[in-house]
């Protein structure tokens, strides 16, 4: 357990940092936005945002010397939250515009949401909008996770075309249905959390999720 509600938001030139920062502040977080590897390594808790392509995000993180500090941070047991592509890069590989290595903190890969459903109908891509969270069948449950204060069926805001396929089904906390495809909505293992949706854009439900993370 970390003291206070201090949180470091990793600034690597990617993602809507202002919105994430304002949302964390609205939840009582003392936000430090930084791209300094030493500050990242010394954080009490870490939020890793991300927008755009998997490979671009990883390249930018490594270019700024932040890949190793983030990996090391994850190993300390202090709480960490990846948002959107920041969640996707927690995995081993991303298959967006070629194959790219991720941070490898969770087993599994990130692939495109299939554009055609099993019944042959076309699925709208990107998956944009408010969609309901449901517990993943083999997940470890929401108690003790960032979703502790969320009720199944509550909706959050998604915007993405790729979805994680965790190598260990137990890491899948929540999923959301997109025309018959179960999108990986949130993941969690120990101190490590990720949400594919944007909690900072998910109204009061999103703020509850961020508040819970700040209390981890």
């Amino acid at each position, binding site marked *: 357990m970390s003291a206070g509600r201090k949180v470091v938001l990793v600034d690597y030139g990617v993602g809507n940092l202002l919105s994430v920062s304002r949302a964390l502040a609205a939840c009582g977080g003392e936000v430090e936005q930084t791209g300094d590897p030493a500050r990242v390594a010394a954080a009490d808790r870490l939020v890793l945002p991300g*927008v755009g392509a998997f490979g671009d995000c990883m390249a930018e993180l490594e270019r700024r010397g932040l890949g190793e500090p983030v990996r090391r941070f994850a190993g300390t047991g202090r709480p960490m939250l990846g948002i959107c592509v920041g969640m996707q890069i927690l995995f081993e590989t991303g298959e967006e515009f070629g194959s790219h290595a991720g941070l490898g903190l969770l087993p599994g890969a990130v692939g495109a949401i299939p554009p055609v459903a099993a019944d042959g109908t076309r*699925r*709208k*891509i*990107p998956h944009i*909008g*408010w*969609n*309901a969270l449901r517990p993943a069948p083999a997940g470890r449950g929401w108690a003790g996770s960032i979703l502790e204060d969320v009720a199944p069926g509550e909706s959050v805001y998604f915007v993405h075309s790729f979805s994680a396929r965790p190598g260990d089904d137990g890491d899948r906390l929540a999923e959301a249905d*997109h025309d018959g495809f179960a999108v990986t909505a949130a993941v969690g293992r120990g101190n490590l959390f990720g949400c594919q949706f944007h909690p900072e854009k998910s109204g009061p439900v999103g703020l509850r999720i961020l508040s819970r993370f700040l209390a981890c």
Partner: protein
Amino acid sequence: MPNLRLIARLDIKGPNLIKGVNLEGVRVVGDPQAHARRYYEEGIDELVYIDAVASLYNRNSLTEIVRYTAENVFVPVTVGGGVRSLDDVEKLLRSGADKVAINTAAIRRPGLVTEVSRRFGSQCMVLSIEAKRVGPGRWEAYTDNGREKTGVDAVEWARRGAGLGAGEILVTSVDQEGTRKGFDVTLVKAITSAIDLPVIASGGMGAPEHLVAVAGDGGADAVAMADVLHYKRLGLGEIRAAARAAGLRVRMP
């Protein structure tokens, strides 16, 4: 499938929230911040800001409004009007916008759609189409907030925009806009049938049954509303209840 999105559209001129009819004859409604905050508290799913005269004066004055909005409104914000370069997009995204809506600059230089989508992701590239009926089943795309003809077929332009990398289409019926007489369902249907991207229908919302028609028969993924919300003709709660009663899935905040 995600829920049907209920979007508040705020047309802006200088510091003011405005509203017109057919995108013309605008009246000042009030302070955009106060309205944005009220819609958030009532459970709006998303906000769209459009700078109504930006193209005309080659400017974009929305950055400050967006910056304030990001302080206490935690739903997605789309900003349009006068966005004409990657720098403009970056500035807006840095101010707290999640997506940009581009109309005039995209018609003038379609490559911009691809550039924005490559650099910032297709999810933040909303192609805004202002469509005016020119015959049965035919609509022309207009620019500069419904002022200038382009000769471009609106449905064809939507199809092309999807290929260029747009992530969403905002289609505004210039004929219906501000009339409160209902959406141009045929136009929306023509576009949702032509492409696989999410489509936001805008222009004409006056009663809950209009929303039901454009989402049901028109296939819209999202509905933008202005007049009915600005003048409190309908409450979001009552709109949501009517949508639910008609079998549409909407978020219950």
